[in-house]
């Protein structure tokens, strides 16, 4: 049975990740995970004449790479489940136009990677699709331009600020084949504990991550040591610290496993000025589909839980004095041959 507990799915047919595509910008290529990405672009503009077009180009490339590595063409894929940070998710929609694939648009801000993966896995597991692709993208300049200040504006970022990843990650799922398998997912509910500062998203998102992780364990009757590694998407230094405090307050034994955060893995804090760490839809996507799945392939990891976190504010909600509602979606990925 697909539904487990209150808000989780267990995929009895264990959909296989047949291929992934990870592309990033130059800054990410200078970080410690550069060897795990399929393609590192040298120019932030990706050879395009606007930041928005650049993000689209990254998205298309990642999607095409994922299909290529799976040995399939895009017209064999039933559905593309995708989203991004841009208003009206135009990076995904315009890329879907190029890719000419039936499109299910989703919005989860920085939680989109796992939201789309969970939905795509559900489609394949239930027989609603033979092949489904999950994808997302983000671009540092397009995000700054939309949410904060023009990229050449001189404002001093506070130490809680995070740096949006420029990149795109895509995963193609099918019922059978060789590759890591998606075994379960927990869709989060919106959690808002009143944090209002858009320069401190980590603090806003930490409660959502903890809430979803606890719900996951409860729904699936698991405890953290079921997994070799649990990662959150982009809580970064401040949010990660708060998540640990929340786990402690809730009496949740996170110490039974290794707990990390993608936002703290992709950049080199010593050499790259990123304040608290990374954020952006692409953060959890490229770290998971690139780095973590590579580690799984090498046999270093057998079962991981990736909990992507998103802050669901808009510039208007913030200017109207609202707090930042957040969400976290968890997907369990295990190594295995189907």
């Amino acid at each position: 049975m697909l539904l487990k507990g209150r808000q989780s799915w267990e995929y009895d047919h264990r959909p296989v990740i047949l291929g992934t595509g990870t592309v990033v910008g130059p800054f990410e290529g200078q970080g410690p995970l550069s060897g795990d990405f399929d393609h590192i672009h040298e120019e932030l503009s990706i050879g395009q004449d606007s930041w928005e077009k650049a993000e689209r180009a990254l998205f298309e490339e990642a999607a095409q790479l994922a299909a290529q590595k799976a040995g399939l063409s895009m017209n064999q894929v039933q559905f593309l489940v995708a989203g991004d940070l841009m208003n009206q998710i135009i990076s995904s929609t315009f890329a879907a136009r190029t890719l000419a694939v039936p499109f299910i648009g989703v919005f989860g801000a920085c939680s989109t990677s796992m939201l789309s993966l969970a939905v795509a896995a559900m489609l394949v597991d239930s027989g609603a699709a033979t092949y489904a692709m999950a994808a997302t993208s983000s671009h540092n300049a397009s995000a700054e331009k939309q949410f904060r200040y023009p990229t050449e504006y001189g404002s001093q970022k506070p130490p809680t600020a995070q740096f949006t990843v420029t990149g795109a990650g895509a995963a193609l799922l099918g019922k059978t084949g060789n590759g890591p398998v998606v075994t379960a997912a927990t869709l989060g509910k919106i959690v808002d504990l009143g944090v209002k500062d858009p320069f401190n998203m980590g603090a806003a998102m930490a409660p959502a991550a903890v809430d979803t992780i606890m719900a996951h364990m409860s729904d699936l009757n698991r405890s953290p040591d079921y997994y070799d590694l649990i990662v959150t998407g982009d809580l970064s230094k401040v949010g990660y610290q708060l998540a640990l405090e929340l786990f402690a307050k809730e009496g949740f034994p996170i110490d039974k496993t290794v707990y990390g955060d993608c936002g703290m893995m992709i950049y080199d804090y010593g050499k790259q000025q990123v304040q608290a760490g990374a954020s952006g839809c692409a953060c959890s996507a490229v770290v998971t589909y690139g780095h973590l799945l590579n580690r799984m392939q090498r046999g270093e990891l057998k079962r991981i839980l990736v909990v992507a976190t998103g802050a669901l504010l808009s510039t208007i909600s913030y200017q109207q004095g609202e707090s930042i509602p957040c969400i976290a979606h968890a997907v369990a990925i295990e190594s295995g041959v189907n």
Partner: protein
Amino acid sequence: MIMDFVWAFLVGGAICLLGQLMMDVFKLTPPYTMSTLVVLGAIVDGLGWYDPLIEFAGAGATVPITSFGNALFHGALQELERNGWVGILTGMFEVTSAGISAAIIFSFLAALVFRPKG
């Protein structure tokens, strides 16, 4: 003459320090910080203290954004004294015209010539 430069440095730096404290201690973002300082400049000039500050600090008082508030009030006052109450409206941008015109024109030209680099 050297003293002109010393005072420009000391006073200008102090106003910027005030702005930095607004950002770090009161957690104001740059638009809020700049807006507050402009309002402060207008009030200080209303009290008659900004002109003497310009006298001895020179660019230390005219370069920070506070002088924008001072100039707006000055312009309004000038026309007020000349033409009565309607002068508040007609004189406001008289003194600041150079700054605003320059900013608009140079920004436009910059958009023609430069691309954003991220």
